[in-house]
């Protein structure tokens, strides 16, 4: 059993598990942080961005002014942003049987995996994961296709050139494997391979393995997965949360008794408390609005935004800011808000019970109804005529490299009245802001990451007691920035098995058993005998039938009698296969009862001689010797086959057959 690690990113995992002849990919996260090396894609022509100077090496030897632009001392690639894909060379992706998706953030690389690789398997995901994942992919595609770039920059990737570039570009790794965004066709084709599953649904893979998604409490439809056979159990924990937000709570007890637990997707900001951050978010927002400024919240179009809106729904009235408009701008804003209301089954109890009234589970329905929240597909069209300031704008993409957020950065960046509040933890906010420097607008960093922290996870692991834990390498050491914080790492006994990109781990499994079914006729024919108290044995002679990885034992067919017409057969060499092999024997043949037995069967003249290990019986009339020892019986008998078999059967009566 092996684990191939195609991504080293702890929260955007992509691992492949080979388990009992199946090849299962666990998530396929897309690392979009590579986009930070690129220049933002403005929706409206930006004089500032277009006037940035091109980059030429100091000695003038390398001139890449078409590809690289300099902004406030940093160099950016002027091209369509690219993403870092899961490793494609470690194993043949066409051999993957299934892909299990844990949540919509961890499926963004799906089209790269399922298209143009020969992939023929199935993808399993819950309905919210599929629907919201589709929205996020479509959004990404729209962001890119709305602002087409004439050509792609590639010269800078040349090894000889890259090493001469200023940092951080110089240190970017695997740049040749970076890819630009997929197309809508590829998204549709990839998602057409998704098969929907519900929590606790048992899905059989080829009869060999059963996989089951469990609620992970992180986002709508997010799941952890159990991958098990009758005897082995692997738990895959990805993006889980114990906080009470909108999704159904995390299911923990089913993770118990795992042989191996693969742990990914812990919080990226272990030092920030989500509740505290939410408070800070609200107070900064209120302060800015009161001062007449606008608030920009770069965010994903689904997930924490629902909680933010709910929080603001209560907060704004109490802060006396009830008239401040919220704008949610995204090509999928409407769909995201609508979809969030129809997945009652996937929500926490509290929200679920609202549907029974019947009321929409999320209060943003009311915000929309009362015109406090408005959503627009983009800044073009109705928005430009309808929007009032000061306001709060929720829009993507959180990397600040593409999407409508770029426009607001250009628009509001110069005024210190405005504030940008970062809530998504996926990007370093300083890196995100780099191409907008110098910036007058206030920046507040309130990352809200509801995923498990180290304290919660060690408690969880204590409860569910997996035999072995596998996790990304960063979890096995304190964060580089806080080397003394040994509480911000996993300390386990036995120590977790760490992986990084391109690792191949052998998982510590010893498979000993497999499930087999005895047909009722066979089961009825068995004769159990008690060996010791509570333990019985029966010998089974049967025909094995294996089909679709299911094994069945059926009664052996009666041997067909040999046609008698044949002449005395020549001695053939064929091993006599149809004959049942003889069982092993166990026990001892006690002298006195055996003698009595012989006597009963007409053998009366027996001379018994004691030896070191037992006795030798001399059957005088028959001239047969029988050596009786504790673990052995030896019958020496010449040319009297009927007698030999008779004696054999007498001996067998005293022994157990296995």
């Amino acid at each position: 059993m092996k684990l191939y690690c195609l991504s080293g990113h702890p929260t955007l995992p992509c691992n492949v598990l080979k388990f009992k002849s199946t090849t299962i990919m666990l998530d396929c996260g897309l690392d979009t942080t590579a986009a930070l090396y690129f220049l933002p894609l403005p929706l409206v022509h930006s004089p500032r961005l277009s006037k940035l100077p091109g980059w030429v090496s100091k000695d003038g030897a390398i001139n890449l002014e078409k590809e690289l632009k300099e902004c406030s001392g940093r160099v950016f690639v002027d091209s369509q942003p690219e993403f870092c894909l899961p490793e494609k060379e470690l194993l043949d992706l066409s051999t993957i049987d299934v892909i299990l998706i844990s949540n919509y953030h961890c499926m963004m690389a799906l089209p790269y995996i399922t298209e143009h690789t020969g992939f023929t398997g199935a993808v399993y995901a819950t309905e919210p994961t599929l629907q919201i994942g589709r929205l996020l992919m479509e959004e990404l595609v729209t962001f890119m296709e709305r602002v087409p770039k004439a050509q792609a920059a590639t010269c800078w990737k040349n090894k000889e050139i890259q090493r001469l570039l200023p940092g951080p570009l110089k240190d970017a790794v695997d740049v040749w494997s970076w890819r630009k965004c997929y197309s809508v066709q590829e998204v549709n084709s990839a998602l057409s391979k998704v098969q929907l599953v519900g929590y606790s649904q048992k899905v059989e893979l080829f009869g060999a393995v059963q996989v089951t998604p469990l609620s992970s409490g992180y986002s709508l439809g997010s799941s952890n997965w159990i991958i098990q056979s009758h005897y082995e159990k692997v738990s895959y924990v990805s993006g889980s949360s114990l906080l009470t937000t909108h999704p159904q709570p995390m299911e923990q007890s089913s993770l118990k008794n795992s042989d191996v637990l693969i742990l990914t997707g812990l919080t990226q900001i272990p030092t920030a408390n989500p509740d505290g951050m939410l408070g800070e978010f609200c107070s900064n927002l209120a302060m800015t609005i009161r001062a007449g400024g606008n608030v920009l919240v770069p965010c994903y179009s689904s997930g924490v935004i629902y909680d933010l809106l709910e929080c603001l729904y209560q907060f704004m009235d109490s802060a006396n800011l009830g008239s401040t408009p919220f704008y949610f701008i995204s090509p999928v804003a409407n769909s995201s808000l609508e979809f969030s209301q129809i997945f009652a089954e996937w929500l926490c109890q509290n929200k679920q019970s609202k549907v029974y009234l019947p009321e929409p589970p999320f209060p943003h329905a009311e915000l929309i109804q009362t015109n406090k929240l408005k959503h627009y597909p983009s800044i073009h069209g109705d928005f430009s005529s309808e929007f009032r300031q000061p306001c709060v704008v929720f829009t993507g993409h959180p990397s600040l490299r593409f999407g409508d957020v770029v426009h607001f950065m250009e628009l509001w960046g110069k005024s210190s009245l405005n504030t940008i509040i970062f809530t998504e933890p996926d990007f370093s906010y300083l890196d995100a802001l780099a191409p907008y420097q110098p910036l007058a607008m206030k920046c507040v960093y309130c990352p809200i990451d509801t995923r498990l922290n180290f304290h919660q996870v060690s408690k969880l692991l204590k409860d569910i007691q997996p035999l072995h834990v596998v996790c990304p390498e960063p979890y096995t050491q304190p964060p580089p920035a806080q080397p003394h914080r040994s509480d911000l790492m996993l300390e386990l006994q036995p120590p977790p098995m760490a992986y990084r990109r391109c690792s191949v781990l052998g998982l510590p499994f010893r498979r000993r058993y497999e499930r087999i079914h005895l047909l009722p006729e066979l089961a009825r024919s068995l004769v159990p005998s008690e060996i010791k108290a509570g333990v019985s044995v029966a010998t089974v002679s049967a025909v094995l039938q294996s089909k679709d990885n299911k094994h069945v034992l059926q009664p052996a067919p009666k041997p067909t009698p040999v046609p008698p017409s044949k002449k005395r057969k020549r001695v053939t060499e064929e091993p006599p296969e149809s004959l049942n092999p003889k069982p092993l024997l166990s026990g001892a043949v006690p002298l006195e009862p055996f003698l009595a037995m012989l006597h009963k069967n007409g053998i009366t003249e027996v001379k018994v001689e004691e030896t070191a290990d037992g006795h030798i019986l001399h059957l005088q009339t028959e001239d047969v010797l029988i050596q009786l020892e504790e673990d052995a019986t030896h019958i020496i008998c010449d040319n009297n086959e009927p007698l030999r078999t008779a004696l054999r059967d007498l001996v067998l009566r005293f022994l157990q057959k296995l």
Partner: protein
Amino acid sequence: MPEIRVTPLGAGQDVGRSCILVSIGGKNIMLDCGMHMGYNDDRRFPDFSYITQNGRLTEFLDCVIISHFHLDHCGALPYMSEMVGYDGPIYMTHPTKAICPILLEDFRKITVDKKGETNFFTSQMIKDCMKKVVPLNLHQTVQVDEELEIKAYYAGHVLGAAMVQIKVGSESVVYTGDYNMTPDRHLGAAWIDKCRPDLLISESTYATTIRDSKRCRERDFLKKVHETVERGGKVLIPVFALGRAQELCILLETFWERMNLKAPIYFSTGLTEKANHYYKLFITWTNQKIRKTFVQRNMFEFKHIKAFDRSYADNPGPMVVFATPGMLHAGQSLLIFKKWAGNEKNMVIMPGYCVQGTVGHKILNGQKKLEMEGRATLDVKLQVEYMSFSAHADAKGIMQLIRMAEPRNMLLVHGEAKKMEFLKDKIEQEFSISCYMPANGETTSIVTNPSVPVDISLNLLKREMALGGPLPDAKRPRTMHGTLIMKDDSLRLVSPEQALKELGLSEHQLRFTCRVLLHDPHSDTDTLGRIYTHLKSVLKSYSIQHVSDGTVIVESIVIKVTSSAEEPNLKVILLSWSYQIADSTDTKKKKKKSSFDL
């Protein structure tokens, strides 16, 4: 012999008060708990005294499962849980859990407030009953207890309708509830995987009907409504507030839009708005098309359909009214019917099945005079039309489901005896499986033949599979030999060697030796050498060793040669073999020896 027992307390050779008891693997499950629309007395509810004469049902039932929100499937639930007494889990899907209490409350109001019955369940009892409900998601495997698991499948009959699979060990039963195998304007078609249950319990409302295409029926319906409205008549469509009503509303709404009709369409209860809300929130339970387009256009927001007020019934001019309940047995629909029945210009369209004893059933059977309460009679002059819109599987659909699930046995409920009989014959003929149709209170037992799951040691299995080759050979089956160890609750099949080791037993060697005399002038060593060469040439597929200590070993047969000093030419060949060597092989060896001798 393990068996599954099924006893219908209701819906046995009948439609109404569905309630079926199933015993499987030591577990007792109640499937549905409905009321009968045709009765107003004790027969309204299933006879729970069948389960126990005295008191509460909790200890006799492991769980109750409700397939959908129609009252003939859930109407007796508060009576059963609160008045008879049951505290165990009640399973139903989310939409059913949402809508069921509303219909129960409606039912209670009609019975208690309007008809003045006492000794009926109260609003509080409905609430208490609903607290015992555990929601089910589609395809989720719910572990009721260690052994009993249930799983819901989409049934397409009404919003949230489910079929359910009940499984204990390797035995299983599927109960369909009411289902529909053809997608309609708002719901998808029922679906189940090839789960091969021991028993499939299916409804059989339309056991003998094969309905024409849905489109034809829709066209017919629209034509009739249109004609009546054109000549100034009023159309009454008795429906249940949720379900068929929404489908017909979508149909009329689009038709009105297209034809630019002006006659008002009303929906009788305040439930409409609420009902449509449920449809919106549970849109994942509707059909593909509605789900796909719901963000752009919500199919359940109607422009032409307005709320009905009681006073509108006397308004002049044409109108279309959807009124509840659907079988004209009580409530608003019956009230309007009484008002309009006398005018031949008017029309009543019954879009669904009517239970015996209801006004709906009577008029559908052509009864022209109805006896009403208080000895009054009502002349039925208006046109009565029947349109089968109720979403039950027809004969074709039932056969289709059997093909999907491949059950080993079949049991029919929720239908009329005569029609069932016909379908039963057809099923038995076509699928060669037994089909049962017990009456209420009659128990059917089905013997199951479960195979026995055993843990086989992987070594043994792999060895066997390697020996057997990739494909089984039907002509030369291989017999596998193993030892089954039964200890505590575990059954493990291991190789005999491993069994000995595990049980701490030592092997008992049983060996046989016989002497063969042979005249040979060579030395002992040479004789042995000759035997070796000979055997080597004859027994090519056996492993034969010539050991330096003066023995030849063929598999586990040991051959030695000795001779006495007196007669050096008379060799004594000692042939020693263990019990495990098959006797016939052994005999062959001997024969060979003699042939060598000659």
